[in-house]
């Protein structure tokens, strides 16, 4: 309902010419028409697909690496002591800060945005995984050992399942963030994708196209976050004391 009111107000304000006309704020209906044109011509689909593939590859690789290394660091004190200083050093660097260096190292190709997404996903998932693994109550580990479980069994059957809520928090936050980063990367350095389309629209002063791109971006952020919230609920809501069922 609030979204419908917002869209109606947008349409009215743009139509009554309170602002300097369609030039700076096209009516919502014109944005919808443009969305149709861009979709029909395949421009939007092509650019969207480029961005989606980059996000999926970078996000999956970054998350898997974050979960694996985070699990090792959370479980093994030696690995934690060895890697923690390095991670602490690199984590504060903003993802987009890597662009100049990566442009020189990798060049301007598909690997550049994928690497950026990888970096953007890796660190938060890593930190959440480490926290999740370390926060598992030692009594559960003792109980599993007394029930005959080896170290590896304790890790796979007790520790990782109990760390899942933390791991999912990392995944959920970074699923949206990956889209924000890909747009920024495409705007700065890559000629294809939603970000690149945004930049082209800006140079042609096509505000309707810019708004179409922003809407697509907002929807994708939302879908990714909701997907992980759903997955988290499916995998943990049955047993969590603080389970949220209506995400």
């Amino acid at each position, binding site marked *: 309902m609030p979204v419908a009111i917002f869209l109606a107000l947008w349409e009215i304000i743009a139509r009554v010419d309170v602002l300097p006309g369609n030039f700076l704020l096209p009516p919502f209906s014109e944005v919808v028409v443009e969305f149709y044109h861009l979709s029909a011509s395949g421009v939007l689909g092509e650019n969207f697909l480029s961005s989606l593939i980059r996000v999926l590859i970078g996000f999956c690789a970054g998350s898997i690496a974050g979960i694996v290394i985070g699990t090792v660091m959370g479980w093994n004190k030696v690995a934690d002591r060895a890697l923690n200083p390095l991670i602490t050093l690199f984590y504060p660097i903003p993802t987009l800060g890597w662009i100049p260096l990566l442009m020189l190292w990798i060049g301007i190709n598909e690997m550049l945005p994928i690497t950026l997404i990888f970096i953007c996903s890796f660190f938060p998932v890593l930190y959440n995984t480490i926290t999740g693994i370390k926060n598992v109550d030692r009594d559960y580990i003792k109980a599993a050992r007394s029930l005959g479980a080896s170290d590896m069994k304790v890790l796979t059957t007790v520790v990782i399942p109990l760390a*899942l809520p933390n791991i999912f928090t990392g995944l959920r936050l970074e699923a949206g963030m990956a889209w924000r980063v890909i747009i920024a990367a495409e705007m700065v350095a890559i000629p294809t994708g939603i970000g690149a389309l945004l930049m082209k629209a800006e140079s042609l002063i096509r505000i309707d196209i810019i708004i179409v791109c922003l809407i697509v971006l907002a929807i994708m952020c939302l879908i990714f976050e909701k997907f992980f919230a759903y997955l988290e609920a499916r995998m943990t809501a049955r*047993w969590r004391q603080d389970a949220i069922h209506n995400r």
Partner: protein
Amino acid sequence: MPSITVKNVKNYACRSVNLEINDKELLVILGPNGSGKTTLVNVIAGLVEYQGTVLFDGISVDRIPANKRGVGYLFQNLVLFPHLNVAANIAYSLRVKKWPQQRITEKVRELLKLVNIPHLASRYPKNLSGGEKQRVALARALAASPEVLLLDEPLSSLDAQTAKYLRTELKQIQRRLRITTIYVTHDLMEAINMADRMAVILDGSIEQVDEPEKLLFFPCNDRVSDFIGAPNILDCDYCKSTEQGVMEVGCRGLKLIVPHDGNVIHKIAILPRHIYVSENKPRGPGINGFIATITDIIFRTDTVRFCLEVSNNKLVAEIPYHIFEEMDLEKGKEVYIILRMRRIRVFENKNVSFDKANVY
């Protein structure tokens, strides 16, 4: 089932502990918080580091890791795995040992029946009551048919009524399975009710190991006596059966009714906190009620102890400080006391059955 020997075990909480637990016995380790009783149980389970030796049936298990010691452990806070339902919690040790699925299902069904919760198989721990969780934890500890069962204050988080009920059930299950069991508690009455033998641990050292009655009536030193609540111990002059599950005993002029049906009673014991003290004559039939004179008042942290004289017997009674404040009691004053019948413990002469000596 093995006997267990703990030889000269030392670590951060235990100071040279020596202890023998007999085959199929239920030994209660009794001690205050922080006395090292949980650590001692963890040593036997292999969950903490220690110096010294632990032997099962005379064979050292010091180098055997916790997951291979064949010990069932019921933790104080139960530690049910929250991500597994009741059946999966119970089946955990069997899955780890790679039992075939059909045998696991059968064993879980059998254990659920043993602890009377077959209807809870698919529930998650968050949806169980305290008593139900306790039963699941016990079934899980028993699942892999352990040779030794360690129970660390398993009833401490339950309300008194549920704890009483489950205590009886735990004891029955232990008797039925004939499994060597160590039961940790800080509650004297719970210990007395459960134990074949009791070991009192204070500041990381075992002070006394004995049968419950012997420990209560013959504490080996003042520390043990103080810890178990410095019971009043009275010698009995005569003993008469009333044939209603109770006996009448005479202790230097005090005629007492005690819950007992068996051999001749030699001594009786009652803890100071189990003697009711009142300024006014209590209502009721007056069983075990007497008039006593206060000879001394001793103030403790949260309680007040009265030294009382009644018919040439010296008794000590204890009441909470906040109740003392509401009363007007002083040395030399007369008070009404009741020795609570159900709280009186008896020490019987096992060689003299009541049939052989009605009065002695």
